[in-house]
């Protein structure tokens, strides 16, 4: 059984149809890259998988670990191992990173029938997790993402991922706006968190990130549909040739 089966998924935001029949199968151990021009629906796909309330699924289904994913609340999806690294992480002034991460960690533990961790136990857990993003403990006393640089926000997403230990990690434009050092830290964090039983979907506009997180499959999303799939060399081809040729291809496909 595949970890994730997306079948003919359509979704809209208000009146606007964005996804128009996406099909995708992801197995444990695999890394899939979803590429495509701006406005093609990449981020929408990521958000729909995580359950963002702004989108309405208008057709198709998503089976995750044998279960109807679309039937679950966003928090239930997360508890079952679906993780979305946000393109625009939300700032929560007033709550420290330590509070926030412990709250998330304890919800997972509750969902798994384990006891909640007290602040001291959690500190031990954190020590290991912080190494993943090459951070010291001082980041924990700052308010969540408030006043963080773009790079710090993305590193914080990966820290959250480390705490949640997801089965299916979806990275939404995690590379956008990162300098090369931050990109390296974020990518190596993601690689360290890979397990044989986990899978990663990398949503990106640029090929650059895929030098660090090497995909097994590359899919090109145009106009709300996956119009071409291939291996990692497809990303290089897109980098070299841009998206226009593939948009033309999609246009021909649509009229054929």
């Amino acid at each position, binding site marked *: 059984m595949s970890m994730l089966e997306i079948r003919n998924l359509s979704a809209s935001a208000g009146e606007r149809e964005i996804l128009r029949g996406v099909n995708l199968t992801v197995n444990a151990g695999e890394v899939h890259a979803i590429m495509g021009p701006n406005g093609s629906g990449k981020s929408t796909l990521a958000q729909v998988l*995580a*359950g*963002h*309330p*702004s989108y309405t699924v208008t057709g198709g289904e998503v089976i995750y670990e044998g279960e109807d994913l679309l039937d679950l*609340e*966003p*928090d239930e*999806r*997360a*508890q079952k191992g679906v*993780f*979305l690294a*946000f393109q625009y*992480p*939300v700032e*929560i*002034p*007033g*709550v420290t990173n330590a*509070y*926030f991460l*412990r*709250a*998330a960690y304890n*919800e*997972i533990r509750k*969902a798994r029938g384990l006891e909640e961790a*007290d*602040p001291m136990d959690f500190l031990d857990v954190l020590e290991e997790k912080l190494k993943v993003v090459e951070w010291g403990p001082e980041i924990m006393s700052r*308010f969540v993402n408030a006043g963080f640089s773009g790079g710090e926000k993305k590193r914080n997403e990966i820290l*959250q991922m480390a705490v*949640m230990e997801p089965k299916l990690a979806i990275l939404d434009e995690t590379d956008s706006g990162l300098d090369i050092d931050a990109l390296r830290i974020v990518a190596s964090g993601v690689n360290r968190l890979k397990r044989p039983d986990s899978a990663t979907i990398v949503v990106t506009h640029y090929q650059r990130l895929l030098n660090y997180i090497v995909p097994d499959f590359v899919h090109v999303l145009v106009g709300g549909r996956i119009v071409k799939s291939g291996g990692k060399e497809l990303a290089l081809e897109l980098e070299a040739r841009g998206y226009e040729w593939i948009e033309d291809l999609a246009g021909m496909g649509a009229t054929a």
Partner: protein
Amino acid sequence: MTAVADRIDTTLPAWLVALRLRGEQRFAELGLPTSRDEEWRFTPISPIARASFGAAPDATVTLEALAPFMFGHAEWPRLVFVNGRYNAELSSVPESDVRVESLAHARSARPALEKHLGRHVAVDATPFVAWNTGQITDGAFVHVPARADLAHPIHLLFVTAPGAGESAVYPRNLVVVEREARASIIESYVTLAAGERYLSNVVTEVVVAENAWVEHTRIQRESEQAFHMGLTHVSQERDSHYRNFSFAMGGAIARHDLRSHLNAANVESLLYGLYFGRDEQLVDNHTAIFHDHPNCRSWEVYKGILDGHSHGVFNGKIFVTPEAQKTDAKQTNRTLLLSETAKIDTKPQLEIFADDVKCTHGATVGALNENMLFYLQSRCIPHAAARRFLTYAFAAEVVAEVALEPVRAELDRLVQERVGVGLGG
């Protein structure tokens, strides 16, 4: 009816008798405000007008019962008032040159008292001030001499004992911090009479002398059936720094007027507030900052969390006279509405007559942000818990401005309890 003078304690010094008489007369003339009065338009106090309040009964409480209100620091100097009267057994004031005493005891012996009491706030600043002034019996008197630097905050603890229903207390406080001194004052109104209906009508005058530094935390945790009317008048002299944090959680009708008078140049005044309302509570904060001199800075952040059918009122006045050039004033009021039926009347009122100033204000009112809720849910936190979490965050941002760590921790705990989150330490 007995003549006014006959009802006043004859042991009072003449100046205090005169002050009380002025209060009594002004209150008789003014009566209680109505909603036709612009200052009270959004604050219907008719339940107070309709009620009649007797004298608060003599009562005592145990030290154990007060422990939850002491921030884990029993060693801090404290004056305890039970039902408006000073209680020496429950109070604890170490010997020092800092005067921390009951007004009733200090009234004849302290020149500073005569010099300042009732000299800063106008007797008719509000009808409630006139009422309070006419009733002055007891309260706290704190006098910090020049250049003193207090090791501990001074806690003024006003507690209502069980059985205080249908009575009224009129605490009258005076805090004088002389030049170049540093002091931290906590003023708490707490109750052991949960669910009882009584009235606290409080007036506090704070004098911050030249280059003095004062941090003033006001905590209002009255019974949710009680009425709390408080006015704090602050007079600041040259180069002084004053920081107020006003926390309001209790009261069926609760109002605090905070008036900060910047009486000389180069003064800094920081006003922070956090208020909660639920059920039918009415919580009102009226602040006024008087910029009368150049190069002063005021910074104000008030935040509120309203649930149920509660009603919040915020009025923030900033007056800048033509002399007050280079004024830097910023005011922010943010209210979170947790129900469809909660409401807030928020009104910034800036009157600026100087041309070289920086004055800004902003008010926001809203529900919890959907995107933030989704972010938390995507981190495993269920919707209801995410709502509580974000509500807590909204409050915590301003609680973080409380300078004293033990007080901050206690307010943080109160917020967690009220909001229903258990984040621990």
